[in-house]
Every structure is written in structure tokens, then in C-alpha cells.
């Protein structure tokens, strides 16, 4: 199915995106009015050194990862930051794991020195990861092991390739961004409302995915088992089998868990407003067949299929997919209202209509990333080596207005003429990204980390040492 669609549809593919990076800088495309730059563009790797030299926000980055332990509070754990693993990916895909740094200055020096193409953040270990060798082969209680780690999620558009009609793989455009936007909404709502997490950082991964960092202390201290449980709770879409989506919905009842019902409400809004029309999900035969395959009800499917086939090529005033979705809903409602249809059939149809939304639009988490404490995840503010885009924080509250194609790039920041409108726009975009980082995440986190350290000292004084 996927191949058929690929062949028939107009699409923006990888090359287009790569050309973007070389043509007009995507970070400023909104402002550029004409002449593309004449001189050859520098490569992303060339720009990495100056980026780490002058643009990377070390202050914010380290303030985050220190969780208040960089303060002058007497109870602060000065070793805290140093027990964090960072992994550098050097040029040529060389992974240098178990890097750790005493403080901001040391990190800054190392990055300027090694110029990693990518930085991953690992867990906090019980000891400085650089000294891990001293702990191998010792008794059970003195092993080198992770003790803390943010709860992380990774959602990638490539996992939507079987339902995306605008492009495949590394492709990303305004037509598929709604899938990411609704993913942020659904997961963010669950994490905040159900699990009570407050310090959640959403990051654009630089190309076609998004990352989520849940940084509440409670989240950081979760065991692998608890992480798996949360990931499973959040996973309604469980991959596909033989072309059909596997959904973890209630099998015994039409009622779903309140959390799933909330997700459905969010999905429904995104579906009718953006996903359905922009992805053109009912516009041509392979697409509607995929949808009808979920509806299953023979009578309904046959009728619609026939009607849509006859209408092939006919022009409509509005959006064809939305119109057809309305027709589909009407057909289902007709059955639901009819007295002759049996109860099982009605139940099935009612459920199927929901299932379409879950199968096409529910966030597709890469759960392996979330399950284990010691899984690495790319750090925010890295540069994506292929696109040159900065992995910028996103405000979940205004996720729908986030434009992945307009994200600030290292070229915009460092390869434009000083003072040119493009350079200014890039500076502005970077400043805004930092503002988002502070406003949506860091400021509140810093306040709560500070309080937590003080509170801990107090309770430790009262109760003796916690185990």
C-alpha cells in the first residue's frame, strides 16, 4: 500500500529537503525575498566549532542538568553534575560514551576541543562514569549503575510512513506536522493531568521527530519497570501487523479509559481540522481503502467505495477528504439509527470510527527509548548534522504554530553576513528558543529543584540518613 501511494502522490522528498539546506536558509525563508547567497555554503560540520564557541547556551544547559546542585546551598551535591553521562558522537560516527564533566567550564572546553557532531544525554550514575572501571567486577552492591534519569519519549515521523501521504522517511512538511502537534498535545496532557508531572521539556529533534524530557524528580527516580508501565499506559498504538494497526483499546467494552477518551477528543479536533484535509486521507483510492479497511462493515464500505469510485476526478468546492469523512460518518450514523441492524454491528461500527483516529493519528512512541534508564537521547540545542537545524525547545501550549521548516539553523546563525536581515532573524529565533526554554521549563524547574534540596536536607536532619 505504502509504495502505491508513494508513486501516485506528489511529494516533497528527501532531496528537496537537502536542497533546502543548500538553497535559501530555511530558518529565514519567511523573510528572504529574493537573491540566494552567491558564495558556497559552509558545511554543518564546519559551522559546529563556532557554534559551540559562541552560540551554544551552556548556562541554560548546565543549569538544567545540575538540578539546583550548582547552587551555593549547603545541601547541594557538588558531584551531581559530574555523575551524568554525556555521549559525544565525533565525526565519522565515533561514539565516545561515558563522558562526564565537573562543571560548565569543563564541558565548554571539551566541546570546543572535540566538536562533537552530536551530544547525547545519558543517566546519572552512582559514581562518576569516567571512573566506572573501578567498579566493575565488584560485589553486587558496588556495581556501576544508573540511579536517575529523566523520563524521555521519542516520536519520529518515519514511524508514520504507512499513513503519511505527503512523503516518507526523512521528509517533514507542514502537511505532516499536525501529526507531531497532536502527539505533543496528547502526551503532554497525559503526563500533566494523569501523572502530575510539571517539568516537561519538548524539543524538536532537528529533522523529523520530537523528544520529550520529563524532569520532575519523581520521574527521574523511576525504575525501569515503572518507566515501561508509563510507556505502555501512553501507547494506544502498538505498531502494525500485516498492514493493520494494533491498538490497545478496551476489548470488552465500548467505554475506554478516561485518559484514552481525552486523547480521542484531542485527536478528533486535530483530525477534522488538519490531519484529514492536509494528509488527503480520503482523496484517492489507496487512501480511502486504508480507512475503510478499519471500518470493516461490508455494507457501509461497499456503498462508499462505489460512490467514491464513480466520483473519481470530479471537482469539489471544499476539501474532498473532509467531505468524504462526513459521508462516512453519515453512513455509520444511518446504521446506528436503524432498527434492523443488530447490536453487535452497531458496536463494531461505533468502535471502528474511533479506531480510525487512533490508527492514523495517535502518537507513535518509540517505547524502547522510554523503558530503560540508560538509554541515550540527543541533547537539546544540538545541531542536526544533516539539516543544520538547532534542536530547539517547543512550547506545547502553542505547538500548532510551530513551524519545523522555519527552525533556526546553524547557517542562519553563523554563515550569514553580520547585520544582514537573515542573520538578525536567526539571532532573533535563537533568542526566542531560549525564551521558550526558560518560560516553559527551566525557570520553574530551577525554583522547584532549589526547594527540593532544602526540603531534603531538612527531612534528612530529622530522620537520619535515607537509604
Amino acid at each position, binding site marked *: 500500500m505504502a509504495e502505491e501511494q508513494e508513486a501516485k502522490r506528489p511529494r516533497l522528498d528527501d532531496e528537496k529537503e537537502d536542497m533546502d539546506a543548500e538553497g535559501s536558509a530555511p530558518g529565514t525563508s519567511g523573510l528572504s525575498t529574493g537573491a540566494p547567497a552567491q558564495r558556497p555554503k559552509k558545511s554543518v560540520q564546519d559551522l559546529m566549532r563556532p557554534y559551540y564557541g559562541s552560540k551554544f547556551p551552556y548556562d541554560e544547559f548546565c543549569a538544567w542538568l545540575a538540578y539546583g546542585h550548582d547552587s551555593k546551598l549547603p545541601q547541594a551535591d557538588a558531584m551531581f553534575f559530574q555523575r551524568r553521562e554525556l555521549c559525544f558522537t565525533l565525526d565519522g560516527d565515533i561514539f565516545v560514551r561515558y563522558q562526564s564533566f565537573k562543571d560548565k567550564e569543563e564541558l565548554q572546553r571539551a566541546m570546543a576541543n572535540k566538536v562533537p557532531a552530536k551530544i547525547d544525554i545519558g543517566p546519572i550514575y552512582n559514581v562518576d562514569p569516567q571512573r566506572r572501571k573501578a567498579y566493575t567486577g565488584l560485589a553486587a552492591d558496588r556495581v556501576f549503575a544508573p540511579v536517575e534519569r529523566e523520563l524521555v519519549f521519542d516520536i519520529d515521523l518515519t514511524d508514520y510512513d504507512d499513513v503519511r501521504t505527503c512523503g516518507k522517511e526523512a521528509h517533514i512538511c507542514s502537511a505532516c506536522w499536525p501529526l507531531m502537534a497532536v502527539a505533543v498535545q496528547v502526551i503532554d496532557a497525559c503526563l500533566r493531568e494523569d501523572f502530575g508531572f510539571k517539568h516537561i521539556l519538548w524539543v524538536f529533534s532537528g529533522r523529523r521527530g520530537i523528544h520529550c524530557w520529563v524532569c520532575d524528580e519523581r520521574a527521574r527516580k523511576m525504575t525501569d519497570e515503572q518507566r515501561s508501565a508509563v510507556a505502555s499506559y501512553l501507547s494506544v498504538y502498538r505498531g502494525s501487523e500485516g498492514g493493520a494497526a494494533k491498538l490497545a483499546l478496551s476489548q470488552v467494552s465500548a467505554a475506554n*479509559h478516561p485518559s484514552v477518551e481525552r486523547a480521542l477528543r484531542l485527536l478528533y479536533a486535530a483530525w477534522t481540522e488538519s490531519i484529514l484535509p492536509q494528509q488527503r486521507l480520503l482523496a484517492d483510492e489507496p487512501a480511502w481503502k486504508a480507512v475503510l479497511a478499519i471500518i470493516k462493515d461490508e455494507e457501509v464500505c461497499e456503498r462508499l467505495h462505489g460512490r467514491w469510485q464513480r466520483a473519481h476526478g470530479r471537482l469539489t468546492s471544499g476539501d474532498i477528504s473532509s467531505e468524504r469523512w462526513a459521508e462516512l460518518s453519515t453512513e455509520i450514523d444511518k446504521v446506528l439509527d436503524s432498527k434492523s441492524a443488530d447490536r453487535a454491528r452497531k458496536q463494531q461500527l461505533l468502535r471502528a470510527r474511533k479506531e480510525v483516529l487512533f490508527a492514523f493519528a495517535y502518537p507513535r512512541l518509540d517505547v524502547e527509548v522510554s523503558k530503560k534508564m540508560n538509554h541515550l537521547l540527543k541533547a537539546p540545542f544540538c545541531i542536526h548534522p544533516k539539516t543544520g537545524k538547532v534542536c530547539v525547545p517547543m512550547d506545547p501550549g502553542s505547538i500548532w504554530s510551530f513551524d519545523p521548516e522555519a527552525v533556526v539553523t546553524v547557517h542562519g546563525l553563523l554563515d550569514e553576513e553580520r547585520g544582514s536581515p537573515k542573520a538578525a532573524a536567526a539571532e532573533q529565533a535563537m533568542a526566542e528558543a531560549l525564551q521558550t526554554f526558560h518560560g516553559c521549563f527551566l525557570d520553574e524547574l530551577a525554583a522547584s529543584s532549589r526547594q527540593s534540596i532544602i526540603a531534603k536536607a531538612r527531612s534528612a536532619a530529622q530522620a537520619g540518613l535515607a537509604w
Partner: protein
Amino acid sequence: MSAWMQKQQARSTRAAAVASAVAEDAAELASEQRISMYTEAPSGEVCIEDFERYAIDRLRVLKGIEEAKTKGFKGDQLQELVVKLAEKHLRGATQQETRWKDAVSHFVLRLAYCKTEDLRRWFLQHECELFKSRFRNELPASQVDFMRRHSFDYEALAGEEYQVLKPDLVKVQESVGNSAFANEIKQATSRDAFFKVPFEQVPDLVATRRVLLKAGWAYVSRHEVASLVVSRFRAGLSHALVLTARRWATIIADEEADRLTPLISTLSERYLGPDYGDERKGPSEAVMAAQIPYLAKESFPLCMQSMYHRLHTDAHLKHNGRLQLGLFLKGIGLPLEEAMKFWRAEFGPKCMGEAFDKKYAYGVRYNYAKEGKRTDYTPYSCMKIIQTPVPRGEAFGCPYKTASPQELTEQLRAMRLPPRVVEEAVSKARGHHYQLACTAVFQGQHNCICESGISHPNQYYDESRKELTAAQGATATVTLGGAEHKTPVVKSSASAQALTAGPTPMTT
């Protein structure tokens, strides 16, 4: 929680010294009828035989649980089976003896399974399953009583909060199919129906969305309290195991060097044989993992028999052997999931759980075209087996070619073949007529003439089954001729049961 842990720590250090006496909370034990948190090591004398016997009986239960889970048992079905297993193996003559045996066996296995991360994980997982099943098997009143005794003082959901959450609580119950309970909530303001706990304490309920979550609190219904209790049981046992390991390494291992140490260190390597319970009756054409031991004896050609034997005694078989035996087993009709079960059980003593999954599960799936090139490999023929060079010490290949005449003689005698047949086979093998030797053995074993000769291990097997089935059909007329393994097929499943459940494999 941490106070509880400290208590637990103090207790389990004592627990490590199983054989030594520790003061016991008699009042607690009196009310503690069938389940225990094992916070206190039992005190009293255990004779060394009981010490071992109890441990092995418990091991049977835990291995039975592992078995059931690989078979896909879940929920109530699993619970029922686990309770039955415990009843079967851990029951004493009196209630008191049952409790005693339960406690002793638990603490002995704690010692045996504390040493490595893998062992601890295995023990923890299956002990938790056992505990959970037993707990859920209790009546609600007894469960509540148990929780009270172990000071699970959770906040019961009540008043305004309950009213606000009621519609959502109903929805959760409906979504998991408890409509009766959902109606109960709707109609009455039934008190104490829910506990409010941090979501971290009920990961299993969270994972399956069986619980309402609000702002980090999980609202656990009284039907689901088991997972709360188990969660604490797990945390306590996990912690205790680490402490026990430390204490074992530093103190007890030396103190008990002559008495308990040798016993303890071999316990975790004990192989109890594939005890596949009563799942023996499958479709006639499919072969179950549990049948392999007796099928091997009855119908495997020598090459497969010796590989199987090697696998069974070493709990390991090298790559080529796994390939050769694995494909042969596929050929006789062992389905993938049964194969997985078989290999997992055979490798069990040395390599279990995740380690097995990482190292060997791929290979099993590969044989069934589920990995790699996904080619449906066919079992090797005699020609292929004979031609493959066999490095020293490997178990694969054709034994008529690779074994020395003495070894061969011994192996054939072990099959209880008449001396005449052994002689004939050995001399044919010496003359490089390996397949003729094999044919001679087949004829001797089945007391028949094999005109086509043996050219494929699977052919050997198929012919053998045919002969044995025919013999079964005509039990009255066919002379059994002293070949005692020529038991009718139906009966042999019973004998296989004796074989796997009997005392012999225990001591290997």
C-alpha cells in the same frame, strides 16, 4: 517506607542464617495462614535432607510457573495453576508443617539465588508470581486482614473527592469489563472501595490502564489490591536478596563451608527436567516439547540421541549442534513455540531469562525462518551430516563416523540393543558404512526389516514412529521380543511423565 526497609534489612541479615535460630513472632504466624511476606526467617531445626528436599520442591513450583508463563498462561488461569502447583509441592501433613516448609524453602532458595543479578531476577520474578497468585486466591476479608497486619495504611478514597472522581472510576471499571462493579459504584457510595496511592506503586495496573490516574495518584479498587501488596513484596524481597548476597559472600559461605555451602551453591544449577505438567495431549501430528525425552529414547537416531544427551547433561550445545538438532526437531513436527520451550528448558540451568533470549532465541527462530534470511531450512540428511567436518569435542555429526569403536559400543549398549546388533553396527561403522550401521541399529531396535535403508535422520524417526504405532495397533499379535522400549505409544506418555517427574533427573 524507608523505616520499613530498615526493618527489612535487619531482618534479612538474620534471614541469611537460615540454620541458626532466630526469635519468631509467634502471634504473627498464628494468623498468617497461607501467605507470608517472609519478613522473618523461620527458627528451629531443619535436618539437612529436609533442607534440600524443601528447596527442590519449591524450585519445582517456581520452574512450573516459568513454564506456564512461557506457555502463555495469564490472569486467572495462571493463578489457578500456580495455586495448584504450590498445593502439590509445598503442602505438609499439617497446616503448621505447610507453613514451616513454605518458609524454610523460601529462605533456602533465597540463599541459593542471591549470588548473581540473573539468578536474583529469576527468583524475584517467580516468587512474586507465586505470592501474587496466593494472595489473590484469598478471600477479600482475608486480604484486607493481611494488609492490616502488614500495615498497608493507605488512604481510602472518600467524601467529595470520591464524588468528583466517580464518573471516571466507573469508566475505568467498564473499560476493563467489570461492569458489575461499575454499577455498584454508580449506585451506592460504597466506602473503602478504592485506595489512593502513588502511581509508582502499581506499575502493572498503570501499564494495562486498569486504574484511574489523576495528578500522580492511582485509585486502586479493592479488587486490585494484590498489585499493591505484590509491589511491596517485590521491593522488600529485591532488597533482601542483595543484602543476603553480601552477607553470604562475606560471612556465611565460610562459616558453612563444610555443611551448607556445597549444597547451596549447586541448588541454583539443579535441573529438574522439563516438567511440562499435563499439557501432553496436542494434535497428533505436532510434537510437544514435553514429549522429546521419551521420543528421543524411542525413535531418535543415534546422532540426534547423542546430541540431545549432550545438550541435556551440559545444558549447552554448540552452534552446529543446535542447528542440526534444531532442524531435525522441526522436521519431526515440533512447532516454534514448543521448540523455544524445549531449548529454554534445556539451557535453563546455565542460561535463562534474558540471557537466553539474547544469545539463543534468535537461533531457534532462525531455524524456523523467522530471522535472518528467513529461509525455511530443511533438516540435514545423513549425507550432509556425514560430510560435515566435526572438530574435536563437538557433539554434532554422525556418531558412527566420529565415535571410536569403544565409545560407539558403549553408546549402543546404553540403548539396550542385543549384543549381536551392537557388534554388527560397530563392524559396519568400522568399515565406513555409516548408514548401514545406522540401519542395523534401526532394525535391531524395532525388531523389523528396513529395506530402504536409512538416509535421513527424519526418515529414521518417521519409520520408527510408524513401526511403533503399528505395534501398538497389534499389541496382541506382535511379539515384543524383549525390546522393552517397544511400548505402545499411548502408554509411553505415561512413562515419559514418570521419566520427567521422577527422581532421576533431579540428581543429574
